[in-house]
């Protein structure tokens, strides 16, 4: 079962310069909320920013990670 810490580390190692805060919304290890700040988001649409985060987890989103709510910020 994925943990918030594991998701945080995977986001931060996959997206250059990213800082992530990840909360387990239900404590059940399947509904997460991630707030991610990265310079990699500069110039990207919100849709593209969220895709970068989803892409870290591929098919796990919708599988073991039932829900991943995302908020992104560009750090310029």
């Amino acid at each position: 079962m994925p943990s918030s810490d594991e998701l945080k580390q995977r986001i931060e190692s996959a997206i250059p310069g990213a800082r992530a805060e990840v909360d387990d919304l239900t404590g059940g290890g399947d509904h997460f909320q991630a707030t991610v700040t990265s310079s990699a988001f500069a110039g990207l649409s919100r849709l593209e920013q969220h895709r970068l985060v989803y892409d870290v987890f591929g098919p796990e989103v919708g599988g073991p990670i039932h829900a991943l709510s995302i908020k992104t910020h560009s750090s310029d």
Partner: protein
Amino acid sequence: MTDPENPIRAAVQGAIDEHPTILFMKGTPEAPACGFSARTVAALQSLNAPFAAVDILPDPRIRQELSAISAWPTIPQLFVGGELVGGCDIVMEMYESGELAGALGVEEPADAPDAAPAGADPAPGPLGIENRLG
């Protein structure tokens, strides 16, 4: 484009192409089956935005084909003019920033009912709900 090999994919793509605003969700606007879908419906309804809705739950292939088309893994998914706008997080951010009404091509409703200009058009009719895939 119809693909005789993949009727579900063709039906999903057809629905996206046909409806100016279409929401793929879990459950129906009247009875959403997931909090993310419920919040997205509420945002659209509060703007009086007409939208078609498709419940993806009756057949897992709907979600599979939808995500293959949109390259977006989660539900709900809102499309306007054939383009993916986003899921619940993006729709809610756009709602809160005031961008959503513009993206949907509707007026931001006035806060006070009596702020409506005299002789304004009557309120839009019932939402256009249609489930072509259920």
